[in-house]
């Protein structure tokens, strides 16, 4: 693990607090994680429905942000149409359960395959190009998916799909908010785990190499386009699976959920927290969900304040609140 090997070598900077020194030891970090996870587990016993609804939403955005983080944070590709994958997952589940009566759990593998295919279709041709072209193409693609969802018959047109059946798990019908709280908490933990394993895998190191120096990476035998495509497709799967559960929780989906603003919001979560760093992204996702709730009072100024905060952070702390350490 790279962080462990860095710790003894890096001389403690004078400004570093004792807390950070303490956190640098992995055993301590695991303790903290266990405490946080325990707190998250017992929360539904004490919190009211409003708090649970918001936190469920936060865990949901953790999954989406971690998925986009693979594309943006690990591989360094700007994706402005991430909501499209989320839409593909949500509509796959929506169509299969409401039109064809398929069991919810069986729609997940279908959604995974569908988002993979979408990822390959859009990523395959464009990943060879400059990264800023990719940003625009993904933006255009996100719009194409939304317009298709709006105009096709099978997706329910502008009004979307309603009456998506809620799933059962071991005989328990998932219809309470605390059920979904646990479902999304489990998804978020799974997403953290997969992200962590990916980051420290051979593939993760290849992403980092390509991100830092594409030509050098290629000279070392890393297939530039293939590696980027992996990032893109894995990110798409995260979005697709999150979309399945979103459809199941909401029981209704409409094209307006998947607008450009949704993609930007997810990107803001990744950037605010710190690209490429799992705790940073989790914090970013929480900030994303909690910010509008906390500032509910200022009404229409809310998004403006949000945008200004984002601009200030990117200008003064371009690596995010809790950035990945890079050597």
């Amino acid at each position: 693990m790279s962080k462990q090997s860095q710790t003894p070598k890096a001389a403690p900077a004078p400004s570093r607090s004792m807390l950070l020194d303490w956190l640098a030891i992995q055993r301590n970090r695991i303790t903290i994680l266990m405490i946080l996870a325990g707190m998250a587990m017992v929360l539904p016993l004490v919190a009211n429905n409003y708090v649970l609804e918001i936190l469920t939403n936060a865990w949901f955005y953790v999954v989406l942000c971690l998925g986009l983080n693979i594309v943006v944070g690990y591989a360094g590709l700007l994706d402005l149409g991430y909501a499209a994958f989320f839409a593909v997952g949500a509509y796959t589940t929506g169509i299969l359960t409401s039109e064809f009566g398929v069991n919810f759990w069986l729609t997940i593998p279908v959604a995974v395959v569908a988002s993979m295919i979408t990822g390959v279709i859009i990523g395959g041709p464009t990943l060879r190009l400059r990264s800023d072209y990719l940003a625009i193409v993904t933006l255009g693609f996100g719009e194409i998916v939304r317009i298709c969802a709006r105009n096709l018959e099978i997706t329910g047109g502008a009004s979307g799909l309603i009456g998506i059946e809620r799933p059962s798990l071991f005989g328990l019908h998932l219809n309470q908010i605390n059920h979904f709280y646990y479902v999304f908490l489990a998804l978020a933990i799974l997403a953290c785990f997969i992200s962590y394993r990916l980051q420290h895998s051979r593939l993760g190191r290849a992403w980092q190499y390509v991100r830092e120096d594409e030509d050098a990476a290629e000279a070392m035998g890393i297939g530039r386009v293939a590696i980027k495509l992996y990032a893109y497709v894995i990110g798409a799967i995260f979005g697709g699976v999150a979309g399945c559960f979103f459809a199941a929780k909401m029981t209704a989906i409409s094209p307006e959920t998947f607008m450009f603003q949704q993609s930007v919001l997810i990107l803001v979560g990744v950037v605010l927290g710190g690209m490429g760093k799992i705790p940073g992204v989790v914090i970013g996702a929480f900030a994303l969900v909690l910010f509008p709730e906390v500032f509910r009072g200022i009404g229409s100024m809310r998004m403006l304040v949000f945008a200004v905060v984002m601009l200030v952070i990117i200008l003064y702390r371009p690596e995010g609140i809790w950035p990945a350490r890079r050597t």
Partner: protein
Amino acid sequence: MSTLDILLQQLANGLILGSFYALVALGYTMVYGIIKLLNFAHGDLYMCGAFIGFLFLSLVSGLLGESWGGILCSMILSMITVGLLGVLIQRVAYLPMLAAPRLSILITALAVSMVLSNGVMALTDGEYEAFSTDLGFEGLEMGNVFVTYTQIALVVSAALLMVTLFFFINRTMYGKAMRAIAIDQDACRLMGINVNKVITLTFFIGSALAAAAGVMAGVYYGSVHFFMGFVIGLKAFTAAVIGGIGSIRGAMLGGLVLGLLEAFGTQIPFIGSEWKDVFSFGILILLLVFKPTGLLGKTEIERM
């Protein structure tokens, strides 16, 4: 109406749409050519231009009326204001980020775009504002094809702006400096060109052109909205890519080509107007796959 009439009518519509696209695409391509930045905020500058023009028009309408005099005056004022806004954005947001990684500056541009669109949304409560003018609906009728004088005037003024820009880029000292900086910034600095000043000027001109297009769109469509910059930003980028990004002539050509393609595209069976945007983004994606350098672009394919 005969098929020929429909085609001629779409030709007229396409030319108008295309000249808006071309004006906005010029700003994209100039900024991209000179500092290799994809300015996501450009579409929002177009939107700001429309709103500021609307504001000035209501201020000067008492003095000059809501006809051509008032519109021209408010358009010029809007171009200057938005030009300065563009310079401010460049100074505050982009200048400190030029040395940062590519991803950071792209995200900065996105944040600027969010600030502008959400700012206007907060000011207008997200409502449509009626851009009322006294221009009337008289026009030329050629057979079954009908074109209003307003439409003709808009196309002519867009063409005038583009011709002026073309001469500015190709015949003046500053234009020459811009072209030189696009090729090699460091060499220009060594030759005594004030690079920062020229970059500032580029932002000013690009933003002013977007504002002009915004005011024209306000006059043409009769209403302005905080979200109007988003789709046109995308379309203008598509136009710039069709022409070959970084090329001035390419942006003009690309804008017209895209406008015409869209106008005729709506006439193809099974592609109704609701599929119009899919059609043009589809063109963008296909173009990037098969000819990423565009019609008039240079042949090299750069990597980040």
